[in-house]
Each structure stands twice: as structure tokens, then as C-alpha cells.
């Protein structure tokens, strides 16, 4: 059984079953609290019948409306290992579409996220949800100080910027079919 409930700061005390998973990042307190204060409706959790968190998603909005870049960005989505393979991750992502596509309060053109180019599992997962690669950000996950070059591709440190159009992007102008071949550098990804 799954309920979707707004995330509160005190939920941070109950995340161990989710965050002890080695693939889930544990962020600084300020990261979670900033998302809560700046995008209060885009940070929510799934809960079990016992009201325990079983997963959560945190997202933000950014970009300019005029450039048709106003969008929601998924910063993190993660599920308790005991609640995987039941469509919970998809459900959290779908709920984000529900909350961001309507005229009020967000009316975003699209949702995007970044994923490592070698993370085939995640890429397949998002493709099933209707996301497609918009561009490859070369060296996005590279070590600080290293200057990336478009000619040096590396699946370990490059990211796919994946997007899904929402209702507002009627003509699907915010996505592209040949995104895997479109390479940019991290500094080009500015909204």
C-alpha cells in the first residue's frame, strides 16, 4: 500500500532504511531544507501503511518562460530496497507531472533530470516513463578542476540530460529525437 505525503524536515530522522542503500546519496541538511523551503510542494514521500517513508522525490523549478525553458528538475528520487520493483519510482515521477503541468502553480514545459551515461538501468527506467535524451553533458560528473572537452566522451563521467514534455509543450519543442548525438559542456547547462 502506498500513500503520497508531503515531506517534512522531521522525516529526515526516518530515512535510514532508504538512505543506507549505497546508491542513495546522503546530502547535507541544508540541501534537504532548501528544497523544502524553496519548492515545498515538490518534495514528497511515499509511505507504507505504518506511515513509514518508503521512498521520496525532490525536485525544483527553474528556467525562463520566454525561452520555453521553464521546467521542473528531478534532483533525487529513491526507493527503500524493500519497496523496489513495484512501480513506486515511476509513481513518484508521475505524481511530479501531475503537480507541475497544470496552470497553477507551476505550468512547466517539461521535466528533466540528469543521469550517468553508463547507468543503463536508470536510462531504461526513464525511457519507459516517456523521457528521452535531450543532450549529452560531457564531463558533468567529472572531478572538480578537470576541464572537459566535447571530443573526449566518457560514459563514467558524462551525463544524459533527459526530458519529458508536459502539456504546455504542445509542439514538443523542448525535446529532440537525436539528443544522444548532441553534446554540450557543463557550463552550457545554465537556466
Amino acid at each position, binding site marked *: 500500500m502506498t500513500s503520497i505525503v508531503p515531506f517534512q524536515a522531521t*522525516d529526515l530522522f526516518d530515512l535510514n532504511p532508504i538512505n543506507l542503500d549505497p546508491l542513495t546519496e*546522503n546530502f*547535507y541538511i541544508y540541501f534537504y531544507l532548501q528544497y523544502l523551503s524553496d519548492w515545498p510542494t515538490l518534495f514528497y514521500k511515499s509511505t507504507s*501503511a505504518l506511515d513509514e517513508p518508503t521512498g521520496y522525490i525532490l525536485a525544483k523549478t527553474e528556467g525562463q518562460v520566454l525561452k520555453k525553458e521553464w521546467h521542473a528538475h528531478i534532483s533525487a528520487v529513491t526507493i527503500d530496497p*524493500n519497496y523496489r520493483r513495484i512501480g513506486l519510482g515511476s509513481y513518484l515521477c508521475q505524481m511530479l507531472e501531475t503537480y507541475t503541468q497544470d496552470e497553477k502553480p507551476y505550468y512547466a514545459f517539461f521535466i528533466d533530470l540528469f543521469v550517468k551515461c553508463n547507468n543503463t538501468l536508470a536510462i531504461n527506467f526513464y525511457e519507459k516513463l516517456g523521457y528521452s535524451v535531450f543532450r549529452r553533458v560531457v564531463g558533468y560528473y567529472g572531478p572538480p578542476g578537470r576541464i572537459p572537452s566535447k571530443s573526449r566522451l566518457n560514459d563514467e563521467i558524462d551525463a544524459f540530460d533527459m526530458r519529458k514534455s508536459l502539456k504546455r509543450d504542445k509542439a514538443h519543442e523542448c525535446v529532440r529525437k537525436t539528443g544522444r548525438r548532441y553534446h554540450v559542456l557543463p557550463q552550457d547547462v545554465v537556466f
Partner: protein
Amino acid sequence: MVYADPFIENALSCGNYKLALQLVDRKIKEHPNSSYYFGLRSQVLAYQGPKFRQRAIKEAEDLLARCPTDIQTLTIISEVFDLCNYVPLVDPFEAVGKKHPNSSLVYEWFSHSVEAGNLIQVQKSTMMLTKVLTTDKSSRDQFSPSSARMAQLYAAIGFVLVCNCCSSRITAASRKLFPLLGLKLVEKAKPQNAQEYFVYCELLKLAGKEEQCKNVLEEILSKENDLQLKLMYLDVLDRTGKYEQLFETCRHYLDNLKEDDWNTWKLFIKAAGEIRKTGDCFKIINEYPDGRNKGLAYLELSKIDHTLRATDFFEAYISKYGSKKCCFQDLVSVLDEHPELSNIDDILDRIYEKEIVSVSSRKSKATEKDLILMVNYMKLKLHQKTELLNDTDTIKECCTYYKATEQLLDKLQQFDFSASSEFAIIACEALLSQYKGTQNDLPTLLLRIVVIMESALLKNPYEFHLKLWLIALYCKLNLVNRAESLFESLKVKFVQLDTLSTILSTRISSLETKLNSSKSNILFQVAKFYSNNVGREVPQLILNGFKQGSFSKIQGFFEFENRINFSFTRLQNTNEQIRNCRLQDDIRRIEITLKNDLKSLYKVYAMEGKELDQKINDNRDRKTFWDCGVHQRIKTVSQKLDMINPEVNMDYLAITTLMNLLIYDYNSSLYEDYIKRYLDLYGKVGDIPCTEAETWNFSVLAHIFEPSEEIKTDPKIPKNQLTFNFNHTIFVITDCVKQLKYMIYDHSENMTTKQIATIRSLKKQYSEVLKKVKKDINSYKKNEKKQISKVEAEVKHWFAKNEIGRQFSVDANTITNIFEEIGRAGQQSMKQLNAI
């Protein structure tokens, strides 16, 4: 605190208060109009001890009467009152803020209240802010948010906070008045978005205007699908008994908006029951797309519609989701609440015959789905009858399933983990549950369990429940070095330090391996987290929450702030650091920082309040450890685990805190209170989870303050080095001698000659005990390798020859490898004894 003058700061940090006072007086002559130096003067007096306390309070009060508007001065005055344990009639910021209501000062008052997590002051300051910004138009642009409107909303949420979080501290009249005042403010501000409507509706609820609240929610929800407001709306409909409307609204969300949400389903079914529409409800469930919520909705409906057979739906759910890890947790709450499901033996038997027997007997090769079904089957079986843990057949069954599915472990992908570890953990719980021996023999069983869990971890290296168990076991076995490695592999950080670090850092023995490197040990990391991350980040982000108008999150922010600032782990960590520093003779750190931290936390503890900012909040995660197997703390198992290094509780923490305050805070005006509370707690020491050595240590201190309290028999050092009590007892004896030594030198003024004589005599007596211990340690160290080899042989024999041991199929090579690690960790533990 950062001081304006480095010389004064140096003098204060060295404890040279006379010099500090001279320097401050000189500054006062130079700057006779500076309130700051007058404030500093009262602070130096407060530091100088009990003789100067009254003067410090008087000078601070006189200064406050002059209404200084300098923020630093007001902060100092607050600190002076705090140092002197003096509670003024009015908070210094409030006193000045009310007399000089200018926006900067009132905003500082508000910020200060946010930083302190003081909700009553947050409410008062935000209310004052609305007045200031209405009257003092020139000041509106001084800070963001710049409008009087936002200040009105700040004040409105301030009323919500006080009513929700401090209701026992406000009068009944205020409880009625505050929501009405808040409503006036919100109505003036005219809410514009979901967050502002949230404040409005919270106040309407608090004012008992449920009907109006419902109407407002309907209005905003027709324009915006906001999750928080939707939940509030469903709740209002439920509480006001508007079941027809609740039924239709839930149907709208479930059916029209396709929001497949269990909270909505539950209310939908409840409403259906109330208005006798269970037939319609059943139809909607039937037509709904397949999913876990649908399966469980049938079961929920069968609670009120007795024409439906719960057992059929239960079995159908297992056949559909039995191969999902969450199946057991999904069903467990239904099992506990549904009378028709009190006995599911027949269902379990059918699952066994149909799905499990062929796999467990190896007639068919197990798949991942089979494994998970077997795990769920075992969990459901044990949930029904926890007493099965006392049956050796349960261990055999777990081993059979583990072996039948073991080949799947070879196919695990990186970072993935297998459910098979559950069998290992259940088997170990059963071994513990069935243990009938004494504390002395327990380490041998714990070592067997370590072997079982370590070998499971070898094939399932990312399974964190196994790691948590192993950390706890290694700490009990005096093998902290290995526990530390596993803890590091969990990459515990930030909030997790508050919830998880106590598993490693409880009691002196746990610190042994890094006793001499205070900067890298876990205690230091935890302390740094509170001072750096919590102290610096949280108040700023709460202010940001106000600025962004994220009103639905503000209460959670304050609850988080107070829970983490006044947390059990923080207090325990401070006590452990004090013990650590005392053992290393680092008294300066205790005097300068740790003592003050302890005093502040003790003040919160002593309030014994019901509310978050008036009590020590226990955020320790003791759930994840038990969140495997039957997903509950099993009494028979935890009792066995607590035979060595028992889990500590609030009373343990209180008596330890008071012991340290009695040693270091001898100038406090609360000293008599410390003694009384310490002796009261000591009176029930038998019920506090202390070790034998700790009880003895507490008795020594109790005897000093109340000679009629007899000192317990000297603690005995166990012969077995593979038990927590070995290093622990030695450290406690050492620590006790150091406590007495400190008291002889520093308590000469506040104790009677007789007391000092008693302390001297005790110190002499225990120094002799310690000398003997030190002599014995060398022989123990020499013996250590032999002892470990002997235990290794015993463990190998058990796994090879014992009927139960053989079930685990752990080969001798694996045991040898595990014992190599144990040997290394054991050596590290022995090395730590050099520090005493």
C-alpha cells in the same frame, strides 16, 4: 561567541577572569557609552563563580533597564542570565524590542528566537514585526521580505506554531484567542497561494471553524491540486462526519484524477461504510486498474462488509505480490487489525505445498521470486507465532531455504542485495532466543553468530542490516576495531550521525581503538556535526522558509531544529567525550567547551517538559536494526543482547550527566539540585541499564555526597578478553580514579574537609586496584592469542559437529578468515589498554 577585543577573549579562554575584568574596565573608561563593554563586564563576573553571581545578574539587569539596542549586548545579557541560571521576567530581546520597536531590532529578536528554536518568542517577535511594519513605513525595505503583508503571515504562522507546539505553556484564554488573532491577520493579508491558504486553514481549524475551513479548501482546491491541502480537506470531511461528500471526493481523486493513494482509499472505504455504500465501493475497487492498493482495498473493505471473505483476498494478495519484498510489510498491519485473519495457518500451508516445497527440496531450481516468496512465507509464519523462534526447527528451516537459494547470491549485481540475509538473521535471532546460559558464556554464542553473519555478508556485501547487527555484536565482543570498519563502510553522515552513531559510540569501551586520536574518532565527528552543520545551517534555512513563504514546512523545521539540538545522541556524545577527555587528561577541553554543552543540555532535560524544546528527544534509530526478519524488536532476543553492554536509556544518560556535572560544575547555583537528583536516580540504579563497573562507579560518587550509601564491591575484570566488559571495566576503574583526582584538586573550596578526606582515601584505594590491574594486563595481553585460538577451535567444532551448527554449512576456511580479522581487532583492543 566572538569578542570585539582579542586580549579580553584570550583572558576569558584561559580562565583568567581577573585580568579579563581589568581589561574590560579599561575599555569602559575608553568607551563609557558602549553598552557592549558593560555587558561584557557582567559576563566576566558571571564566569568568576558563585560569589560574583548576584553582582553579574544585577549589572546585567541594570544594563537591560537602560534598553541597549545593540544586538551583541543583548546576546551577552541573555548569556549572563543563562550562566547564572537566572530566568528574567521578560526575555532581554523582548524587553528591548517592545520598548524600541524598530524593524531591525525586532527582526533581530525574531532571528534570535528562530536560532534558539523558541516558538513563544517567535510568535511574540513576529507579532511585533507586524506592528512595526505598519507604523514604521520607512523601515519596510530594510530587509526581505519587505512588505507588511508578509509580516502578517509570519505572525499568523507564529500563532499556529504556538497553538500546535506549546499549548501546555499558554493559557486557555490564549489558546482561544490566538487563532482568532491569526485569522484577522491572514484575512488582512488576503491569502494568494496554497502555502498562504495553508496558514488560513490551520487557523480556521484551531478556531473550530471547520465548516468555513471546508469551504475555503474547496475554493482553493478547485483552482490548484495541492497535496497538503487535499489531505487537509479529506481530514476535515472525515472529522466533521461529512461522509457523503468524503465518499464523492475520494472517488474523484481515485477515479477521475487517477491518484492511486492509500490514504484516499482508506477514507473512501470508511465513508462507504458510514453511508452504506459498500456495494458501490466494491464496484469501484473491482473496476480499478490492478495494483497493491487495489488488493489491499478489498481487505480493508472486508473489515466492514462481512459478506466478503478476507481470507480469499489475503491469499489472492500473496499469490500476486508474494514475490515482492514489500508483501510482508503490506500485509502486517492488516493481519494485526483484521479479526478474520487471526489464523492464517491454512493459507500458509497451501503456499508451502504449492510454491515452496519443490524449491526447498531442490526438485526445482530457485528463482529470485521463489526466494522472496520464501522470505515472506517465513516472516508471516513468525509474525503469527513469534514463539517459533524458540524451536530449533525454525533454525533448520531457515538454513534449508538459505541453501536452496544460495546460488542466487552469485548472480547479484553491484550494489544490489539479496533477501536471503533475512534467513541468516532469523536463524541468529532464534539462536539468541534459545540461549539459556549466563553472561560469561554468551560471547561464544555471539562469535558463532558473527561467523554466520560475516559469511552471509561475504556474498551479500551491501546488506546493511547484517552490518548493523555485526557492529552491535563486535562492540559486545570487545572487537571495536572491526565494528568501526563496518560502520565506516555504511558511510554514515549528517543526520544519520544523530540517529545511528550510538550503536558504535556508547560507553568507553567503544572508543578504545581511537582513544588517542580525538580528532578523527566518531565522537569528534558527531560533535562537529552539531556545531557546524546543525548550528550553522538550520536557523538560516528556517529564516529562508519564512522568506519563501513555505508556511506548511515551518512547523516541521522547528520540530527538526529542536529535536536535533536537544537530542539524546548529542547529550550522550557530550558525556562520552568528557569520559574520553578525562581518560586522556584533557581537562581543558572539558572546562572550555564540553562542560558548557553539558550544562545547556541538562537544563533542557531538567525541564522535563512534554514539548520538543523542553525535553531531550530520542532520535536514535533502533528500528532499522530490527527491520528484518519479523520486523519487530523481539523481547527474548533483545534481553540476551542486553546481557553485555546493554542499550542505554534516558535514566542512564541522566545519571551520567549528573555525575559529570557534580564533578565539573561545582560552582553552579544548581549544585544542590544536582546532588539531590543524582541520589534520587542512584536510588533506582538497579533498574538503570548500567554495567557492573558503572554501578560501582556511580556508588563511589553517591557515597561521597551521601556517606550512608555504601560503595558496591569492586568490579571484577573478566578472564575472557573477548567480551566488552574486559576493556570497559579497566577503563571505568581508571576513569573513576581520574574523577577522584580531579575532585581533590578542584573541589577543595566547595566540599567539607571530611568529604575531601573521603575522596583522598578512595582515590588511594582505587589507585592500588588500578596498579594491580595494570600488572595483570600484561599477562592478559600475552594470553590473548592463545585465547582467540581456543575460541576459534571451539567455534569450528560447533559448525562441524553440532547438529544445529552443521545446518549453516560454514566451512573451516571461512571461519579461519573471519578469525584472522577477529585476531587483528582483538590485538587493537589490547593495545588501547596501553593508554591507561
